[in-house]
């Protein structure tokens, strides 16, 4: 492979003078699923937010390359146009914005940016009906305002549904499993698995090993105090589940 899909090099970032990420490095190639696990406060969501382009974080050192391009130079919408997708940990409710209208606008912005013709209402509806099956959504979802009044599980399913429609090259799933019961988790994880392909990659951020029973990662990274302290294959996740985060974070302390 000529170049990695995502390359994070020595990333240092924080908010209001507080350092959160400290020399984080990570490389991902197309076709791969990476899981990032870590205890509360380790910097998982900060990483997701920085990748999607949230402004609130100050990057003091390091670089991020996406498809060889300096990601930090791009506005959030430009990142989306280039195939980056963040499934939000807490999807935002937007009362008054119709889901169909929103998603069609989003998809067409992406198509436009990539020199593809925009989809008309009929074409979009056909596409959407197909994609809804992936996460088993009822059709009346489309008529409702974005996330307004949705249950926690519905919001997460809606994120994966949007992901299915937008077909990202790199999907970052920020604790998509948090707060889901086992049935909802199965649906969501099943959706994510169906969207996996040789040309895209998924970065699955989670607090619970449970998710990795359903989404099988090629690599597992343990994030602690703002940096990746251990990487391995899926067996690392099982080991973590068994021994707890202390096993690694304490070892880290000793090594340091």
């Amino acid at each position: 492979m000529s170049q990695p899909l995502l390359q994070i090099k020595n990333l240092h970032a924080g908010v209001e003078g507080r350092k959160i990420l400290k020399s984080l490095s990570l490389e991902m190639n197309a076709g791969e699923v990476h899981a990032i696990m870590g205890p509360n406060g380790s910097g998982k969501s900060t990483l997701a937010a920085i990748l999607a382009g949230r402004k609130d974080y100050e990057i003091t050192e390091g670089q991020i390359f996406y498809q060889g391009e300096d990601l930090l130079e791009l506005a959030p919408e430009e990142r989306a146009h280039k195939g980056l997708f963040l499934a939000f940990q807490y999807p935002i409710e937007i009362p008054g914005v119709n889901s169909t209208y929103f998603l069609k606008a989003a998809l067409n912005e992406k198509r436009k940016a990539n020199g593809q013709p925009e989809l008309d209402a009929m074409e979009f509806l056909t596409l959407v009906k197909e994609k809804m099956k992936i996460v088993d959504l009822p059709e009346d979802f489309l008529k409702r305002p974005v996330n307004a009044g949705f249950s926690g599980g519905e919001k997460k399913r809606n994120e994966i549904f949007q992901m299915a429609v937008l077909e990202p090259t790199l999907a970052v799933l920020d604790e998509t499993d948090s707060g889901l019961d086992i049935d909802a988790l199965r649906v969501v994880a099943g959706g994510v698995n169906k969207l996996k392909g040789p040309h895209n990659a998924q970065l699955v951020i989670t607090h619970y090993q449970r998710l990795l029973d359903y989404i099988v990662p090629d690599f597992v990274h343990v994030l602690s105090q703002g940096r990746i302290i251990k990487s391995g294959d899926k067996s690392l996740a099982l080991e973590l589940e068994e021994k707890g985060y202390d096993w690694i974070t304490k070892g880290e302390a000793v090594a340091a």
Partner: protein
Amino acid sequence: MTITMPDVIADTDPRLTTFRRFEQDAAQPKWLLNIRKSGLARFSENGFPTLVHEDWRFTNVQPIAELPFKPTTALSAALPSAKDLERFHFLNTSKTLLVFLDGHFAPSLSTLPVPQKGVLITNFKDALTKVPELIESKLGKLSTIDANAFTGLNTAYFEDGVFIHVAANTAVEHAVHALFVSTGREPGAAAHTRNLVVAETSSRVTYLENYVSLGNAATLTNAVSEFFASDNSHVEHVKFQEESTTAFHVAGLYSESGRDARVWSHSFALGARLSRNNIRAKLNGAGVQAILNGLYLTHDKQLADHHMFVEHAQPNCESHEYFNGILDDQSRAVFHGRIFVHQIAQKTDAKQTNKNLLLSDDAQVNTKPQLEIYADDVKCTHGATVGQMDEQAIFYLRARGLPLEKARRMLMHAFAGEIIERVQHAAIREELDAIIWDRLEEKLATT
């Protein structure tokens, strides 16, 4: 017969000399003259309200009080042409159009509806000759609920307005569109418009009041509308106000609804330097469902004030108030929502929300809920928000690929759309949607 006037008004006061016109008018029924007198008395007893008055704390009407007193006493000799009116909205949404110029009916510019059995839609003066007893039994019966001086002034000096009577079990085929044009030629020129809508049992009607200006003088519109929504009737009232930003606009909307009535009252306030809507809704039969819905868009130094009083007088009624505002520049908005639940009104479901979006640091909102509840088994909620555009929502939309400007537009449109989508009449709703969209696009183009 001479009128005994309250002491505060001098004999040479133009208010008195103008009033004598009605007394000298042979066609003026005695009962109506008495109603006018009571209105004048109410006005002169109270005078224009000041900021000391609790209901007017945030809205200074001193500039109105300082206007020369010039009720427009006749239809202007130089009528605008139909072409002059083309700039206004909603002209194609209904086949029925009643045009009023400074409070006077302009038949040559109007299209009265094809006669329909059980339906009388005409101007007030005409109705007075056709159904005087009906008018006598209704006029002023609702508007006397409060001691509002503007309503008193209107009652004393009104010339004309819309009259709608719908017989039982009758549905009015087309929405009634009333276009109230302020010709705006002279400061102080006042139109005291008086509208009366009587919807009998199980009837249905949609009524659109559209207030506009042709000129830019500091004119006054002082309108009063009374709505009688009898048992099981469906009454939708859309008030659209887009007067010149030099004009003053005060309106009293008084409604009483009977058992199982469905009432929608929408107020869209886009124009006027100062606008004040006094909305009084009495839910006077069990099972009423009333939606009171409004949107105000203000900029420059505009002030939009909605002063609500919803009275639950019978059990099992619902009143839902939704008012959203988008404020720019140094504009201001006032929302005062009073809900009064009588002891008998058990199982009341009263909801009130007032949301404000500030596009400028200098814009200002005063919002105040006020609940008075004397029943013990009720559900009453209220909530008010004042804030900037939701940054989280903007980021969410951008992360999905919508450019910043589009994301802002989408949110602003949604904020207004929440209100617009409650309008039941499809053609009016669609036109409103287009008008508000254009207005917001203009807004965004300049920010």
